[in-house]
């Protein structure tokens, strides 16, 4: 069964420092992985995805993620955090089969707090 895990409920970073939000996955077949961000009382916003190709994926708002097959990880990174990056971040994996409608299976979320 497809699953993702986000081992940290919360990540605290000082503004200007690099940030990493961790995600590990377990899939049968090829992994199709996504990162979303959610601000309070808002829907989820797509940041980036890994389907195939380069292991380093660049996304919105300066975020990037590194796909590591041997470690089954897809960590989200940003070289220099902003206070406005403070939000809830979800890693997700696509369901494996066509008849699942491309459903996304989400991790439990990581609350990122960036302090000035």
């Amino acid at each position: 069964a497809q699953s993702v895990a986000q081992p940290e409920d919360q990540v605290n970073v000082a503004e200007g420092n690099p940030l990493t939000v961790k995600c590990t996955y377990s899939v049968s077949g090829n992994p199709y992985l996504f990162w979303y961000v959610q601000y309070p009382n808002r829907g989820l916003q797509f940041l980036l995805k890994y389907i195939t190709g380069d292991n380093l994926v660049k996304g919105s708002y300066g975020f990037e993620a590194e796909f590591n097959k041997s470690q089954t990880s897809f960590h989200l990174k940003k070289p220099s955090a902003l206070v406005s990056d403070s939000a809830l971040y979800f890693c997700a994996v696509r369901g494996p089969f066509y008849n699942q409608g491309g459903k996304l299976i989400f991790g439990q979320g990581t609350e990122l707090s960036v302090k000035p």
Partner: protein
Amino acid sequence: DAMVIQNPRYQVTQFGKPVTLSCSQTLNHNVMYWYQQKSSQAPKLLFHYYDKDFNNEADTPDNFQSRRPNTSFCFLDIRSPGLGDAAMYLCATSRDVTAQYNEQFFGPGTRLTVL
């Protein structure tokens, strides 16, 4: 701008009183999804439509129904809301179900309160 719109943003209903949440999209996407999200937990898929084909998740209660009268609109009906149904309801769309086009676009959500 193409987008996913949900109305209302906040809905208050009484225990047992039917309620309908609305979602519309200007993206002309084939797939529409409804998720339930409780207090900053992971969104949980309730069901989705691929074009006119309805696909229910195995653990979605019968109390939840959906309609998609056309490509642009999709409704979530809760027939007899219980206190446990209070949550944020998120509508999402994707162009197709293949991996390449499976990126989902979310609406802002409707926060449902059950009194």
